[in-house]
C-alpha cells in the first residue's frame, strides 16, 4: 500500500499545469475561502468555452483539480460551467476526504463563472 498522499495523476497535473495563468480580456470569477484563493478566466466561442485558465493558491490537490477542470471544460458548452459538480474530481484525483471542502470551493468558483458568463450572454442579447 502506498503512503504517498498524492496519486500519479495529481503529481502530473501539479508538475505541469498547462492551464495555469491569466487571460487579460476574459470573463473571470474568483473566490477566497478556507484559506484558498482561486480565480478562473474564460474566453468564449459561440456557445462554448474556448479557453479556460486558472490561478490558484492552495494545496497540490487544489492546483491539480483546477488544472483538470480547465482541461476538461475547454470546448464544452458554457452551460457546463453552471452544472459543474466536483464529485468526479474527488474520485479521479483520489482527494482525501478531509480536503472535500477545498474541492467544493473550486466547484463554487466554476459555477460562479458560469453565472457571470450567463449574465454576460443575457446582457449581449
Amino acid at each position, binding site marked *: 500500500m502506498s503512503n504517498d498522499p498524492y496519486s500519479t495523476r495529481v503529481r502530473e497535473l*501539479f508538475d505541469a499545469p498547462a492551464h495555469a495563468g491569466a487571460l487579460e480580456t476574459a470573463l473571470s470569477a474568483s473566490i477566497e475561502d478556507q484559506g484558498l484563493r482561486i480565480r478562473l478566466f474564460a474566453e468564449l466561442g459561440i456557445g462554448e468555452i474556448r479557453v479556460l485558465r486558472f490561478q490558484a493558491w492552495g*494545496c497540490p490537490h487544489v492546483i491539480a483539480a483546477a488544472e483538470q477542470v480547465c482541461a476538461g471544460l475547454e470546448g464544452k458548452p458554457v452551460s457546463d460551467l453552471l452544472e459543474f459538480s466536483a464529485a468526479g474530481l474527488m474520485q479521479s484525483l483520489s482527494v482525501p476526504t478531509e480536503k472535500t471542502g477545498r474541492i467544493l470551493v473550486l466547484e463554487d468558483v466554476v459555477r460562479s463563472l458560469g453565472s457571470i458568463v450567463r449574465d454576460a450572454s443575457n446582457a449581449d442579447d
Partner: protein
Amino acid sequence: MTEQTDLIYLDYAASTPVDAWVAEAMTALMTADGNYANPSSTHSAGRRSVEHIAHAGSQLAGLLNTDPDHLIWTSGATESDNLAILGAAHYRQKRGRHLITMRTEHKAVTDPFSALERLGFEVTWLDPETNGLLDTAKLEAAIRDDTQLVSIMHINNEIGVIQDIAKIGAACNERDVLFHVDAAQSVGKLPIDLAALPVDLMSMTAHKVYGPKGIGALYIADRPGVHVEPLLFGGGQQRKLRPGTLPAQQIVGFGAAAAIAQSRMMDDIRHLSAMRDRLWSGIRDIPGVMTNGAMECAFPGILNVSIDDIEGESLLLALEPLCVATGSACNSKSQEASYVLRALGISDALAQSAIRFSFGRPTSAAEVDFAIERYRGAIEKLRGIAPGRAA
C-alpha cells in the same frame, strides 16, 4: 520502492545514515561468528558482550566527559525523555508537584508533561522570545518553592536555536530544582562537558549522530536528590532503572558513533556552517523569505525558513526530490502549523510555509546548489500560479 539515490536528502535533523564503521562494528555482534550472546548470561560469551557494552559506555561517556556509570541505555530520546520527566516527577512529588518547561520542546517532552498535568501536577509552560531563546529571568521568576523539575532542550529540533543550558542549569541548581535537558539534537554535534555543566538529567539518541535507530541513553548525575523512578519492570538490568536485555549491537553502534563524533566534531561544525551559509546566501534575496529562530544563536546544521504568501504543502511537493521537513506539526500528514513556530509569534500562514533544511556530513555543495535552484524554482512557479491577494 524508490531508491534513496533518487533523492537529495537534507533532513539530517530527523535522522542520519549509519556510519560505515559503526555498521561494521554492529554487524560483528549480530552474526553467528560474532559476540551475539545475552550480556545478562554469566558464561564467557555473555561476559564478552558485557565488555563490548562497557567499551561503548566509555566511548559515549568520553564524548560527554562523564562516567559510564551515570548513563542508562534506553531505546532512544523519546524513552529517555519519558524516563527523566515522569521518573523524576514521581520520585520528587512528595517535595512538590510544580514543573516547568517550554512550549517549544519536542513532543517527547511536552506529552509527558501533559500526562503529568492530568495526574494533578502543575506545569508552567514558558514562551520563548521571538528569537526562540528562553529568557532566563522568566525561568527564575517561574521557579517556586514547590518546583521540582525544569526541562529545556539544548538544540531546538525545528529552528536549531541553542539554549544556554549552563545558565539555565545554574538557575535551577540554586533553587534545588532538577534540570533535565533533551539533547537529542546536540550530543555528538556540540561540545558537552557534563563534568562542568549543571545538568542533572540529559536525554540522547544515536540515530541523529550517524548511529543506529533504536538506542539512546539517559544521563543521571551523581548528586544528592537526583534520581528517577523506573517506568519499566521485569529484570534487574541497569540497576533496575531500565530493565530488559541490553541490545549489545545497538549499544556498540552508539558507542562507535560517539567516538567518531568526538574525533571530528569541529570539522563537522565547520562543514555544516559552510553548507548552511551557502544555502542561505542562495535564497536570502527572494522577496518575502525569512529565517525562523535567530541564526546567530543557532546550530549550523539546521536552517528553518518561511516565505510570505506561499502554500506550504504545495511548496513541499514542488521541492521534490528534496527531502526536507515542513513547518507542519511533526509529520507531513498534518496541515496544522508548527506549534514551535507559532510559539515564536509567527503567523499561521508563515509557519505553514516553513521549510527546515538540515545538513549532515554527506551534504555536498552540489546538493546545496541543487536545493537553492529547486527552492527558487518552486517559489517562482507557485507565485506564478497564484492570484493576487485582493482577487
